[in-house]
């Protein structure tokens, strides 16, 4: 048995595992997609806007519906509850050369 064959075997083995992983992912992923109509129904019925992801502070629970007066909420400085507190506004690097993209017609 050549040394290189061991290497190729290992690579082949890893690729097999990855193949299995991809296969499993497809299955699990489609299982998730199969249950997603139920999730989507909950979203629709309760009219939810956010995922229940971090409950550290009130304003991190429904980041898209955030109160505007919570402490340190707006970037910069929004790290009192890191990383949840950073949900609302990912740092907009264009701030460095501020542009206002709100257009009124």
């Amino acid at each position, binding site marked *: 048995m050549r040394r290189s064959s061991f290497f190729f075997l290992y690579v082949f083995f890893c690729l097999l595992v990855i193949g299995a992983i991809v296969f499993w992912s497809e299955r699990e992923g489609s299982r998730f997609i199969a249950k997603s109509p139920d999730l989507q129904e909950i979203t629709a019925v309760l009219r939810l806007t956010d995922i229940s992801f971090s409950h550290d502070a009130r304003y991190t629970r429904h980041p*898209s519906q*955030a109160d*505007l007066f919570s402490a340190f*909420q*707006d970037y910069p400085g929004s790290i009192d509850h890191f990383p949840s507190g950073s949900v*609302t*506004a*990912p740092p*907009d*690097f*264009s701030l460095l050369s501020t*542009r206002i*993209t*709100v*257009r*009124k*017609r």
Partner: protein
Amino acid sequence: MILHPGILAILAGSGITLILLSSAAILGLKIVRKWDIRDSSEEQLALERRTYLVSTLVQYGLLFEVMALFLFIYTADDIHNLLVGAMCATGSLNANAFGFPALYFRVASLFLAAAWIALNHIDQKAEDYPLTKKKYAMLLFIIPVTFAGYILELRYFLNIEPNVITSCCGVLFSEGGTGAGSSLASLPAQTMKTAFFTLSLIMAASGISVIRTQRNPYAFFLAAVSFIYLIVSITSVISFISLYFYQLPTHHCPFDILQPEYYYIGYPLYASLFSGTFFGMMSGIIEPLKKIKSLSHIIPGLQRRWALFATSAIILFVIITLIPMVFSTFTLERY
């Protein structure tokens, strides 16, 4: 924006490529100035050894370049969700003025690096390394292209403004999908079809004549046709070929065919097109090198082989484009 993992990966990858290629060029500069194959000094030997480093650097550079191109297109596709009105990678690339130029420069530097490696390959076959000086001078021209590509890419990513919720007023009144440069898509499909298939035949014919004769006018002709063919083919992909793959009369995106939904058909499609036209062009470009004595016995065989590559790759390309046209019920006639 710049912290998106894909963007970080591209900037890292192409930054490294840029460093590799620039150091190759700087090292090459000394070779251009001092190279003398008849000299037996230790300095010349050091230069000779340095050529190994340069060609290694360029080879890895090319490899990473391919990777970065792939990532660039994928990232453009991935970020279209973040941009209002972008439906696919085309929309993302149109998000500002730098997207498409960055892509063009990437492709151009890919071609140049590949051409350099091909020349290097020829050069190393001759005992007197006849092309060395030219080769390293050429390297100096690749750098600005790569560099420009990197700058454009950087500007593209820095200038993308993701339209996310801002705390000031909620809705961002962004303009929805302003016409993404659709001039190519609007080229009449029937005319493009005729042009594409005619040119494919011309390309194959000139390829075959080079294979059979390796004669001067044919080689130059093949090179010219290859170049035109590259442009016409990409236009055709946008104008009608992609439509057959999507089975949608309005979807003109040249990038979505790379997605799993379309069985990754874009990869063999572009790979065959790029390699075919590349070898077509190269077999013409090396024609003048026949005059160099130490290369005169190497070139014809190589030319024939490259013309053979070019022709077979183009035939493969045409076959791939024909698959959906022949086997699916979708027709463009009505549109």
